[in-house]
């Protein structure tokens, strides 16, 4: 009898739990794909750490909601000197840092915090420079140490950045969470006193809409709404990241209602999610591009006619359905169509076997040739299935007499070998880091990056290089002027065909019907600041 009672009770409590899954407090559950490397994305540029840290921090300037326009945030205004070398920011006076059980701020955010945050990356002698391994990947990658000459406090709420040379992307770079996050100096001082500097990035303090609560390793991260947030108050009480590495399982969890939203939903589930009455699907345009790059130093691709022939031979429209399930647009330039500076009037290499054959004949390859096409080994938003894409390319090329062998490696080796130029034709792609065209043309096509690696076409065109360098040194405000330069540069690119742009993909997010206020930013990152549960 006793035993039976216990059994009944335990069964009852189980049932209670099953039915009682409605949360008392408003909790938004985000099923993320991996554990963050750090809670400070200045130290690591991966998307996962980006998501985990973004909602706790703010930057001096930020991108507008869902866009790439620069808007004031912690800075209420700024001035730029005529020579584009001095930027002076006036800060908001009403910004508070998080109060948690491990830190209570005594003052509002001011110029000292801004100087502290940037000097941490900039100055090797900064007390926090070496904390977390001193790997400021983006700060270094955007050449900020060379660009910035000094960062000074010029008033309680005024900060001055002096540059060595004008940088057109300077403001955009400050808006990136991988560079511009403002940390609390007061917290830093406390940690120095406690001899516990490592806590800076593992138990973070920021000014953002949500404050850090706890992190259970590889399991969950908990954030609570920050009541004193300087802008619009957060709408949910708690945000929980449930770390769910397996993509299939994330999908199942979404269907079972255990997540309010999931990270990186797979392209093939799009239609199923659309059909599900409990779920909502949001489509988004991200700024990305996939391309097939030649190695222009390797025969026969040294000849522009051969490159053009390949461009005519590839039926890129057919790839959109087969690889992207219709959720992409054929790309015509190295800049995605949704990026400012995109040139609408570029010549188009249509799918035309006769033209391709003629070009090959002119180049002396009437009977075709044998080559390799390298397949991207990892699934990326810009190219979900490199292997299949390579097979389609292979069969297209066969029609004009080119025999292409498909080659691939593990991802690290692949990126390495393409950077070193071992390929003849290789698939690759790029996603925007900062919403600036420079971020595409410089790493992908400049002479310097042909040398350093990321320009895997190994194409170096002096005229093209001069144009993009000029655009780089103009002030950020001269968008129209810079735009013209990029349009000219794209024309050169299109006539020279160092690579063939394939597609710009769309991505989507899936969430429960009652989730409101979600915005996807054009870099494909999720933004939870305005999340609401209806």
């Amino acid at each position, binding site marked *: 009898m006793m035993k039976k009672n216990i059994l009944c009770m335990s069964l009852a409590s189980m049932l209670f739990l099953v039915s009682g899954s409605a949360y008392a407090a408003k909790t938004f559950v985000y099923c993320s794909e991996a554990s963050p490397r750090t809670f400070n994305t200045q130290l690591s540029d991966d998307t996962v750490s980006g998501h985990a840290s973004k909602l706790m921090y703010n930057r001096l300037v930020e991108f507008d909601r869902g866009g790439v326009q620069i808007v004031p945030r912690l800075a209420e205004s700024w001035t730029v000197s005529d020579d584009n070398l001095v930027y002076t920011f006036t800060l908001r006076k009403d910004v508070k840092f998080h109060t948690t059980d491990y830190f209570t701020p005594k003052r509002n955010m001011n110029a000292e915090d801004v100087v502290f945050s940037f000097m941490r990356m900039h100055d090797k002698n900064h007390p926090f420079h070496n904390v977390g391994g001193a790997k400021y990947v983006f700060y270094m990658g955007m050449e900020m140490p060379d660009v910035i000459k000094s960062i000074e406090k010029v008033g309680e709420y005024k900060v001055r950045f002096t540059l060595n040379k004008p940088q057109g992307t300077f403001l955009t770079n400050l808006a990136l969470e991988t560079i511009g996050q403002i940390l609390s100096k007061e917290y830093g001082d406390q940690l120095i006193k406690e001899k516990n500097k490592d806590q800076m990035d593992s138990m973070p303090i920021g000014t953002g809409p949500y404050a850090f609560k706890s992190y259970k390793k*590889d399991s969950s991260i*908990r954030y609570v709404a920050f009541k004193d947030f300087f802008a619009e108050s957060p709408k949910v009480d708690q945000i929980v990241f449930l770390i769910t590495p397996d993509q299939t*399982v994330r999908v199942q969890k979404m269907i079972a209602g255990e997540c309010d939203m999931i990270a990186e939903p797979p392209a093939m589930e799009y239609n199923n999610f659309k059909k599900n009455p409990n779920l909502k699907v949001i489509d988004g345009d991200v700024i990305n591009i996939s391309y097939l790059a030649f190695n222009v130093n390797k025969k026969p691709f040294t000849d522009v006619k051969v490159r053009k022939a390949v461009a005519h031979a590839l039926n890129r429209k057919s790839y959109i359905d087969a690889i992207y399930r219709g959720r992409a647009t054929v790309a015509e330039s190295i800049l995605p169509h949704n990026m400012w500076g995109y040139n609408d009037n570029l010549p188009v290499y249509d799918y035309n076997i006769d033209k391709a054959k003629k070009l090959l004949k002119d180049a002396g390859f009437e009977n075709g040739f044998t080559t390799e096409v390298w397949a991207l080994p990892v699934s990326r938003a810009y190219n979900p299935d490199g292997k299949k894409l390579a097979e389609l390319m292979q069969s297209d090329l066969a029609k004009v007499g080119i025999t292409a062998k498909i080659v691939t490696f593990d991802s690290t080796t692949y990126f*390495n070998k393409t950077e070193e130029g071992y390929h003849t034709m290789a698939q690759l792609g790029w996603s925007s880091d900062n919403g600036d065209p420079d971020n595409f043309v410089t790493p992908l096509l400049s002479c310097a990056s042909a040398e*350093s*690696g990321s320009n895997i076409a190994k194409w170096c065109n002096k005229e093209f290089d001069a144009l993009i360098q000029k655009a780089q040194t103009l002030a950020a405000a001269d968008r129209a002027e810079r735009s013209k330069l990029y349009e000219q540069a794209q024309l050169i690119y299109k006539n020279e065909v160092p690579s063939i742009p394939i597609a710009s993909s769309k991505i989507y997010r899936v969430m429960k019907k009652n989730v409101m206020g979600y915005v996807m930013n054009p870099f494909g990152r999720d933004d939870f600041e305005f999340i609401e549960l209806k």
Partner: protein
Amino acid sequence: MLKYFLNKLLLFGATFIGISLLTFSLVRMIPGDPIEAMVGERGVSPEFRAQLEKSFGLDLPVHQQYFHYLSNTLQGDLGLSLVSQRPVTEEFFDRFPATLELGLMSLFIAMLIGIPLGIVAAVKRNTVFDYSFMGLSLVGYSMPIFWWGLILILFSSINFLHLPFLGWTPVSGRLSPLFEIPNHTGFLLMDAWFSEEGAEAFWDAVRHLLLPAIAMATIPMATISRMTRSSLLEVLGENYVQTAKAKGLGTFRVIVVHAFRNALIPVVTVIGLSLGSIITGAILTETIFSWPGIARWLVTSVMARDYTVVQGGTLLIAMFIVSINLGIDLLYLGIDPKLRSKSAG
């Protein structure tokens, strides 16, 4: 006796050196390095790369790296994770209880089902029971865990057949976000039981534990049931069992008290060995069920080329398994008098 013990200890030391050398070199043979894994297709300047290599200690010649590693390890310092910058040992023991909890639970399920199945199959030898149970265990043994795990989720959590008694197991995770349990022992069942939420949180944890434990239990279950069957069959043919039967004892008593006890020795060995293989099973199980244990941690660390974690983590696991085996060996001495006299002589 002492000689036996020293022998085992010597073997332990040799295994340690072997494993440390193996993990050290294997992880460096994987193409790519931590810096490439970190920056992906973005690339870094050669100067910055050199600076990173130096900060990781990767600029030293390989043999020097190994001796540094070995001498530090002997002092109990496995180094800092290249990714998280925290001590590997700390990271390991943060996650180890989760894996152990899952492993013990699945072993428990495996024994609970495997032993009775084996007994029935042996007693009802060559009947439909025997064939179906042994067939079942063969299926259990050959099912890939990642597939079986997903099938379990589909049937039990998604309940796509809409069966009335299913659908109450969560898809993955260790505890629902409803509960916040302070971490004392790392064994969630225990922590949950003694937390403020008490039984409620405990049952939630049990529901989460069930599917991954079942997914992981199939392989040891198959081995255990087959071993029970064959070992029991052997014993059932012995003279003393015939005697017991001839004395007029009931079948139940003959099987459970007389035969099964002696049949148990090889079964215990298999169970001990299963503890080791559970780590292998955990690699897939933890990934599928988002279980925050060491196996998943190792997988992500391999992806990130986190050298220190891979070599340190593998070493710790290997040492754990070697210690278990050593423990079992010593236990035999206690159990089996024949062995004791052999080793003394």
